[in-house]
């Protein structure tokens, strides 16, 4: 049994009886405890994990297994898990026990996976460094004094350190892709609406999208196949049917391999000049990566996404506005934190919210409240929504001439803990390469493409709506030709 083993290989080990799911689960739980200093987990779920593993072993014994039955994984603590605390990284929900499972959790439970625990995150998924967690920052496994990225930093660091083979996350403006890049692993944000938001604590509902982390693109495909799909309980869930993903869910990675990466042959890949112009670190590695794909028969061409610079301003208005609305539900009455000895109803609301929310959450609520307040609505909220359309149109036009977009995931390698906490606007700029695809609702993935002074650099692939197959097949092709995804931080 080894950390950093692919899901298909682990599943093979389970099928052949090389080890049981209980043994596999114990192995990863032990690693979770041993590397507790990374602070990846908010809660480890030892008892329920072992019960799930026992059930999985029975299923495997009865030949009733899916390709992921018995595989341990970790959920970002934004997904509701029935009977266990779902904190969302906040004091507000520190003791909140969800009365139901998120659809994503329910689907994975039904497939027979084992939930090791709930991972650390920026409070309410607001942040790019994991420093906004009420439960303390996560440390980057490649360098303990650096951030793992955010907001799904706990999930990304846990996969990077081999504490779990795979993990779930959510991405509103880059919260899967940027931590995947900083931690040197693969992470996919699917098309908006692909993965149900039911039971996923809401931040910005027109942007929030559940997704997956793994050490390889192959693992992402397998995990996506089980979490994607229409859910009547989420009114923005897409009814798009994907026979390819259904086949992956049924037959696993082997079928996926034999269905071939031929889709990548003759693929036209666009390199957006606005992104590369603002890249600080990793240019050479990204160029090498594009040459690898070129050598595999892809053609490269420069493209322009002219409204790229409008993305960060538009995003912080739209996400702030939606957050201020969504987070109004935290009132200290029905669930969540309540202040001591409230003097009046208003005092109860105000102090519960002020004591329950951290600084960044309050900043975003205030930004959103400003944008939505009388006299500012047209100038900010409507303006941002118009820019959102222009940004989306940029992409749709680009996809008339290219099949995929290749870009950096982040402008730099992982920054130091505490380096940006005093300057929220500088922190926001970290998301400039991930936010545009979020605003446009496009699927996008970050995969490792090299190390700069010992720290990982991420390569971002952006596809057209529901173009996950092309994204994943191209990522698999790249990882067949390179071994960056097989490199892991020392000491784990």
């Amino acid at each position, binding site marked *: 049994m080894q950390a950093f083993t692919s899901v298909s290989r682990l599943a093979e080990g389970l099928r052949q009886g090389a080890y049981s799911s209980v043994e596999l689960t114990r192995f990863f739980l032990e690693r979770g405890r041993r590397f507790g200093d990374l602070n990846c987990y908010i809660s480890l779920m030892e008892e329920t994990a072992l019960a799930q593993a026992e059930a999985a072993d029975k299923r495997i014994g009865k030949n009733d297994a899916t390709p992921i039955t018995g595989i341990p994984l970790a959920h970002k603590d934004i997904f509701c898990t029935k009977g266990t605390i779902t904190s969302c990284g906040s004091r507000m929900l520190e003791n909140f026990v969800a009365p139901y499972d998120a659809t994503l959790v329910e689907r994975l439970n039904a497939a027979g996976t084992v939930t090791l625990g709930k991972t650390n995150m920026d409070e309410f998924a607001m942040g790019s460094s994991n420093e906004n967690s009420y439960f303390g920052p996560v440390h980057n496994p490649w360098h303990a004094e650096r951030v793992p990225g955010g907001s799904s930093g706990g999930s990304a660091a846990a996969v990077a350190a081999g504490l779990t083979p795979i993990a779930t996350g959510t991405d509103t403006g880059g919260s899967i892709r940027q931590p995947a890049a900083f931690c040197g692993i693969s992470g996919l944000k699917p098309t908006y609406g692909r993965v149900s938001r039911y039971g996923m604590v809401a931040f910005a509902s027109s942007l929030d999208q559940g997704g997956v982390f793994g050490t390889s693109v192959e693992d992402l495909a397998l995990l996506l196949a089980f979490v994607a799909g229409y859910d009547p309980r989420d009114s923005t869930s897409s009814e798009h049917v994907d026979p390819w993903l259904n086949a992956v869910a049924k037959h696993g990675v082997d079928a996926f391999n034999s269905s071939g990466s031929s889709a990548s042959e003759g693929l036209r890949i666009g390199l957006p000049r606005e992104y590369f112009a603002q890249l600080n670190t990793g240019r050479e590695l990204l160029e090498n990566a594009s040459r690898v794909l070129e050598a595999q028969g892809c053609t490269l061409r420069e493209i322009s996404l002219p409204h790229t610079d409008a993305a960060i301003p538009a995003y912080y208005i739209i996400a702030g506005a939606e957050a201020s609305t969504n987070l109004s539900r935290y009132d200290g009455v029905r669930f969540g934190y309540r202040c001591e000895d409230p003097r009046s109803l208003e005092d109860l609301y105000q102090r519960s919210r002020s004591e329950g929310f951290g600084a960044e959450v309050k900043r975003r609520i*205030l930004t959103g409240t400003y944008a939505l307040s009388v006299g500012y609505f047209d100038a900010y909220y409507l303006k941002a929504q118009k820019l959102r359309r222009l940004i989306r149109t940029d992409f749709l036009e680009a996809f008339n001439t290219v099949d995929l977009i290749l870009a950096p995931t982040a402008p730099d390698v992982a920054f130091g803990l505490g380096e940006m906490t005093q300057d929220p606007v500088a922190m926001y700029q970290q998301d400039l390469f991930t936010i545009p695809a979020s605003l446009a609702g496009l699927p996008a993935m970050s995969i490792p493409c090299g190390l700069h002074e010992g720290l990982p650099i991420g390569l971002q692939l952006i596809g057209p709506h529901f173009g996950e197959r092309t994204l994943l097949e191209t990522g698999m092709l790249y990882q067949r030709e390179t071994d960056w995804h097989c490199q892991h931080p020392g000491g784990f």
Partner: protein
Amino acid sequence: MDGIDIKHLSRLAQLALTETERSAARKDLERIITMVDQMQAIDTDGVEPLAHPLDADQRLRADAVTETVDRDLYQKSAPAIRDGLYLVPRVVE
């Protein structure tokens, strides 16, 4: 952007901020709004606002009961309840 009224905004957002927090929040918000104001320079005349990234309409469902409410279960996470009711400070004397 001139004169962000942080007192008014925090009241709208139901946040109680101390004097120190208010001044820090005002400074942060001024910087955020200055950054955001870059977007005012871009011409958006005649552009339709985009509310849903796939331009989808709100899906409607049949007006039928689909959920059952388990009050006791849901109230397990409530800070203060009695006889199935949520308790708040007295509003009407």
